[in-house]
């Protein structure tokens, strides 16, 4: 049987080769001290804050750039950043900012009023020489801006075409981060791969699909960071990201899948949680079918066991939502609001009252998408709850972009209800775009369920032009009470963003804005 000797030799050679690889590399090395390795959920699109839309990209950008203002640690209220002070004209259409002195961009050029003007003109003025470095999909955040004027090198004035209260918090959003005009001029359309800002970390290199590396900026105006460097690694597969965290390949992992949280109990890891400006809801078709009746919409809110969904389906990674505004907007949230309790009997009674027992419902469900959490499992749980009170629910499942293509133009003639989730930076955004009569799909908004209440419209219009925060808060709180009662949506959950750090990482906390801020983080 000599013919077996060749493969046997081959086997031996293969075994030897494997053993060799193992001896050469030994056990996998630990990550170096003072260098934080972050497991991101995807490759960034670009590092140009005006050009990107994804939270994944914002996590890097917030560490490389500053805006004129920023959110105060742990809140969604604005505080000074590159602007030290500002004043708002009485009619709410002029904002004048005093800029911080002595700040330079990472490329050495100076930060001044001309740089601020360059940034907003680039985004908004189609005739600007660098407008072609876009497109700038979120430029409409600043569509209220009429002109930006340089009053002197440290003073800049924004003139708005009408009063627009969310303006300041939009400036704190990543779209408002200030880029270096010199770097844009130098790199043109490739600026997104050669970024330069004023932030705590400066860009070093971007190795496609491997890592984005940033180094500490020792001259940072708000104090140099403790870390020497941060490496952002795109690891799209959640299981692989979890495995990297367990194997010590990354020090910080964002968006931990609920089922994997159990792996990180114990002293070797710290699990962080923070509720954010997110709301997960069902849009109900208030124009036709059973949900045209307010009682039936309320019945759906009573019928769905939200506690069970957040605890069992989402493993505690979300809290039950009470109304349209997430509690993370602490200043605008109405604390008196209680979520609809789980009460199937009450639901059955309301359905009987409306005379729609056994109605057939078409329910649009998505396979996944931005902020949608676990939409298929959640949709199935809700289907069971609604069938328990006598509805006949038919689920139609779509891939995310197809789903948006179906839902955004409105549910009329197609479906009775659809899943949806929003993450916003100002309490104005979601209700203004999705609950007003003027925001019906045919008018270019996202009110896909055709909810309409003149009182709500009036409150939202008033809150948008009020410049006094206390006054805005009062208007939003009143709006929440009415909307909860009218139940245009089933209010389901507010997502708690999570992250895991290894025991070598200190000083880390998640922000309600869902941004990742690393300037105070340490690692041994």
């Amino acid at each position, binding site marked *: 049987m000599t*013919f077996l000797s060749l493969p046997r030799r081959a086997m031996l050679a293969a075994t030897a080769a494997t053993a060799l690889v193992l001896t050469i590399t030994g056990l996998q090395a630990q990550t170096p001290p003072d260098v934080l390795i972050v497991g991101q959920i995807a490759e960034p699109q670009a590092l140009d804050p005006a050009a990107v839309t994804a939270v994944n990209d914002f996590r890097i950008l917030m560490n490389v750039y500053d805006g004129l203002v920023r959110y105060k640690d742990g809140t969604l209220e604005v505080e000074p950043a590159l602007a030290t002070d500002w004043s708002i004209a009485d009619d709410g259409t002029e904002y004048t900012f005093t800029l911080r002195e002595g700040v330079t961009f990472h490329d050495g050029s100076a930060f001044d009023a001309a740089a601020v003007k360059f940034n907003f003109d680039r985004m908004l003025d189609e005739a600007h020489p660098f407008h072609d470095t876009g497109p700038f999909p979120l430029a409409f955040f600043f569509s209220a801006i009429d002109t930006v004027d340089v009053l002197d090198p440290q003073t800049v004035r924004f003139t708005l075409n009408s009063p627009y209260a969310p303006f300041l918090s939009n400036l704190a959003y990543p779209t408002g981060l200030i880029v270096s005009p010199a770097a844009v001029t130098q790199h043109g359309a490739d600026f997104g791969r050669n970024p330069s800002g004023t932030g705590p970390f400066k860009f070093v290199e971007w190795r496609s699909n491997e890592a984005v590396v940033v180094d500490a900026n020792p001259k940072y105006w708000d104090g140099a960071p403790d870390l020497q460097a941060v490496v952002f690694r795109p690891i799209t597969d959640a299981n*692989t990201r979890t495995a990297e965290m367990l194997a010590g390949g990354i020090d910080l992992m964002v968006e931990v899948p609920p089922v994997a949280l159990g792996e990180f109990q114990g002293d070797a890891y710290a699990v962080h949680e923070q509720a954010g400006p997110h709301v997960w809801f069902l849009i109900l078709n208030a124009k036709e079918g059973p949900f045209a009746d307010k009682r039936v919409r309320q019945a759906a809110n009573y019928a769905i066991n939200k506690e069970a969904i957040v605890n069992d389906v989402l493993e505690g990674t979300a809290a039950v939502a009470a109304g349209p505004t997430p509690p993370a907007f602490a200043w605008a949230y109405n604390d008196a609001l209680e979520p609809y309790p789980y009460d199937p009997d009450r639901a059955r009674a309301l359905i009987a009252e409306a005379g729609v027992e056994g109605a057939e419902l078409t329910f649009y469900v998505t396979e996944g998408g931005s902020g949608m959490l676990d939409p298929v499992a959640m949709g199935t749980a809700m289907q069971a709850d609604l069938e328990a009170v006598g509805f006949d629910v038919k689920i139609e499942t779509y891939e995310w972009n197809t789903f948006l293509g179906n839902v955004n133009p409105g549910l009329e003639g197609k479906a009775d209800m659809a899943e949806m989730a929003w993450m916003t930076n100002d309490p104005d955004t979601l209700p203004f775009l999705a609950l007003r009569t003027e925001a019906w799909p045919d008018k270019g908004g996202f009110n896909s369920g055709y909810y309409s209440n003149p009182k709500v419209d009036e409150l939202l219009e008033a809150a948008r032009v009020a410049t006094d925060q206390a006054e805005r808060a009062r208007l939003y709180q009143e709006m929440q009470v009415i909307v909860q009662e009218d139940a245009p949506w089933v209010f389901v959950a507010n997502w708690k963003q999570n992250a895991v750090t290894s025991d070598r990482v200190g000083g880390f906390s998640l922000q309600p804005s869902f941004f990742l801020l690393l300037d105070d983080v340490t690692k041994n």
Partner: protein
Amino acid sequence: MTGYILKRLISAIPVLLGISVIVFLIMAMIPGDPATAILGSYATPENVEKLNRDLGLDQGIVSRYFIWLGNMLQGDFGRSFALNRPVLDEVTDRFGATLILAGTSFVLCSVFGIAAGVISAARQYGFADKAITFVVLLGISIPSFFLGMMMILIFAVKLRWFPVSGMWPIYGARNFWVLLDHLAMPALALAVVATGVVARLARSAMLEVLRQDFVRTARAKGVPERRVIWRHALRAAMVAIIPVLGIQAGFVLSGAVYIEMVFQWPGVGRMLVDAILKRDILLVQGGVVFIAACYVLFNILVDVAQALLDPRIKT
């Protein structure tokens, strides 16, 4: 031979044109456009319309196809919306990584598959044959992404012998040995199914050949059995095995998509999945055309190799 190769190359042109039309039509027809994908929640009709204009998607479908084809023939594959860089840079970057992974898997599945098939055939119904058939069946039945995840769990998380994912270490030198370290698990996981297929076909091809007269003659003349099997019979069986290898090359290339997702290998398969989800039209189109061209070229090479082994094929 030159004429044959030339003929094959010319016949590839309509194939590639057809592929370009198909992938273009698919991307034009699937629901959801790039502007909606980019804008997400903020995709109001007016925002979508403006962004489509900025992206050059407001023109007719026919003129868009010819602009794309014309640019591509001049070597310009366009710019990826989602990655903000030239499509060709991205595709060639990523294709290199896929070639390393798929190439290694291809060599592994060819060598181990043929060896296992030959041993099985030589010891038909013997212990080795039964053992190999069992292992091969197991290999074919395990989905490669599942195998990949299990390998990560055991060899990377528990034993810490290999890194979990990626192609290069984040820090430190880049050399052949660290590449091998990162390559070992994905290449093996990808090779397993293809090895099984090759082994089964190699076994039946060998059994066929071993029954032929020239094998009996060789044995009768006293040629050592080892020489009969590995020289005379295997060479004759290769004519049937090589086309299977050609198909397996396509299989490891497409199977690389799952493995690249699991092991975060920066290859072209993962790139295409991301690009499709983001409706990154030009990247999908350019990537598919590029891969198809490589695949067509590889099949021409296989045919030429076959023609060299068996002159009867060249007609």
